[in-house]
């Protein structure tokens, strides 16, 4: 039966060509859109985890209340002891202390007077113990000028702020901020390199210093703003479970400086963003199925008119209406599968192209506050290979189901009269 129908479709291309083209086009868009959204979602999670959220993050309850302001004066203390404890309890995870601070970067002239000055966002990260932060922040690739810090007292500044303030490699700059206890803090650093992350929120004014320098500068001995935790690979469920267990044990509602663990999903509006992305994908697939079904219903009706005679003959020679209806649906399944295979193949080609080449959206994101790379890439996942089958086959079948109903409206008493004409 299948072989018979397949031969029919191949030999009479007018039955299959138009529906295949329509469905394949839709499948191309579905595969491309899915891969694009997967790429966006993965990049969004990865970039935020690297720069901001970790897979989980530990802060004090007081810090968490004002977390958008990054109040390092309410940060964690006894960090070495805490990291030892975390490493024991969660050996599969990597823990990284960070200090975020705001300040003014001041470039002096030869007399020590201010030559230029600009606001900066400081990152105190562990640059010397191991290469974890270097890889996490992708510093080797982000380096646009000079070298990475290799000794204390050296600072990396964003290329944008260097250009704006006229700072060169080896210039001495002063960072002005306030200590953990609120006193004014000033410290001189030597500019060893400049970085460009491709993340607008960072490129506008980030400076990166080793955490030991920042601890001394901000009077934060063995303290940190946050401790970020990273799994070998991000998976949402384990992060939620780890956070629940940790908080049940260490989060004390009566102590504003007790520790609280925040999983990635619960930070920085991430939950809303991730849910919105899932909703958008679901909505896109639904809209695609709906529109394709309408188009294919219409196409089926037109096909029914074209095959009016053929169906009449089949009815006249005794084939039941149900059998014809089922064969049309089976045909639609074959068309759907064929079109989906073609559409998926083309969609994957475009998706892989976008995965490797990327698409620079920097000009669209120059004022964006979210942490996001300016080069967007698609990501082909195993799902990309079969996501097209859902709308492709369903739309084709729904189209056939509706258009095929017309068969039941044929009056067999009129058949021979119709065939004579």
């Amino acid at each position, binding site marked *: 039966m299948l072989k018979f129908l397949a031969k029919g479709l191949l030999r009479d291309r007018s039955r299959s060509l138009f529906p295949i083209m329509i469905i394949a086009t839709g499948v191309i868009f579905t595969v491309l859109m899915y891969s694009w959204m997967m790429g966006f979602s993965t990049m969004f999670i990865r970039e935020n985890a690297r720069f901001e959220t970790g897979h989980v993050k530990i802060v004090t309850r007081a810090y968490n209340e004002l977390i958008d302001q990054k109040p390092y004066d309410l940060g964690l203390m006894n960090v070495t002891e805490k990291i030892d404890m975390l490493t024991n309890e969660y050996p599969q995870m990597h823990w990284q202390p960070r200090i975020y601070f705001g300040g003014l970067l001041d470039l002096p002239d030869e007399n*020590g007077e201010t030559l230029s000055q600009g606001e900066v966002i400081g990152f105190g990260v562990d640059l010397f113990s191991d290469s974890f932060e270097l890889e996490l922040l992708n510093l080797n690739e982000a380096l646009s000028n000079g070298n990475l810090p290799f000794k204390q007292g050296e600072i990396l500044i964003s290329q944008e702020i260097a250009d704006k303030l006229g700072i060169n490699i080896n210039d001495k700059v002063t960072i002005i901020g306030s200590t953990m206890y609120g006193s004014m803090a*000033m410290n001189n650093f030597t500019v060893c390199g400049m970085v460009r992350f491709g993340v607008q929120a960072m490129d506008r004014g980030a400076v990166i210093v080793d955490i030991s320098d920042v601890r001394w500068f901000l009077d934060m001995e063995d303290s940190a703003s946050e401790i970020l935790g990273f799994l070998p690979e991000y998976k949402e469920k384990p992060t939620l479970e780890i956070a629940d267990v940790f908080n049940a044990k260490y989060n004390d509602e009566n102590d504003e400086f007790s520790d609280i663990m925040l999983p990635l999903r619960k930070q920085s509006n991430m939950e809303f963003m991730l849910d919105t992305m899932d909703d958008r994908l679901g909505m896109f697939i639904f809209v695609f199925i709906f529109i394709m079904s309408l188009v294919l219903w219409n196409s089926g009706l037109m096909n029914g008119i074209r095959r009016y005679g053929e169906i009449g003959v089949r009815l006249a020679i005794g084939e039941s209406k149900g059998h014809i209806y089922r064969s049309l649906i089976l045909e639609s399944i074959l068309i759907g599968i064929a079109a989906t295979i073609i559409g998926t193949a083309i969609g994957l080609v475009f998706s892989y192209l976008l995965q490797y080449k990327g698409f620079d959206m920097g000009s669209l994101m120059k004022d964006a506050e979210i942490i996001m790379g300016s080069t967007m890439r698609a990501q082909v996942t195993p799902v990309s290979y079969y996501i097209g089958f859902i709308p492709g086959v369903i739309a084709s079948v729904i189209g056939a189901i509706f258009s095929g109903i017309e068969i039941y409206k044929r009056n067999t008493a009129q058949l021979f009269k119709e065939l004579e004409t």
Partner: protein
Amino acid sequence: MRKIFIIISLLIAITLFAEFPDGNELIRKVDDNMYSKNAVSTSRMIVHGRRGSRTMEIKSWAEGENRSFSEYLSPPRDAGTKMLKLEDKLWIYNPSSDRTIQISGHMLRQSMMGSDLSYEDMMEENELIKIYNAEVTEEEIINERDCWIVLLTAKVEDAAYQTKKVWIDKERYLPLREERFGKSGKLLKTTEIKEVFRIGKRWYPKNMVFKDVLKKGKGTEFIIDSIEFDVEIPESRFSKAALRK
């Protein structure tokens, strides 16, 4: 009967009204009491933060309203930090970086050394009469002292606070309590004098508590350990060169 009632009411009203002194005259007397030609003082600033208290010891030299110099003597981390105010400019010298930075723009609104005071508070014109119009609105007893409650409204555009409500000691002309409001009418800071002392003819605050109501914490205590008025201060004290000495 009705005429007698109206006359009595008028007399009472006039009597009550007459009891309130002229606000501007009152703050002029406050200025006369509080401000001298020059002064040298040693004080302690205790910042009561959310994570405990921190004490800083400061030596200050002030000449009139427009020139002042202060040096932080302790704790060790802050020792050697110096501030110079000349007219409407403020410089800070930090010994560890050996840099002098002028504080301007939005930095003026930041906390001074972690206290409840901002640099802008420090820069504010000392003489009330030059910035505010005053109106006595009520009287009240606070800390067992009779006070006038005076509403100060800024008459200059660049005032740090649009309005202030001040409780002025009727005899000593000291602002025992102060509430400072922003342009929106929101209460921003409070000041309270906890202890006073007499030096010559003046009454002067010994212990004051400043509170930034937008900040959590128990405020900043300012204790004057010693003060000398009308002493000779060398001109070189109020120079940028003095910051690095």
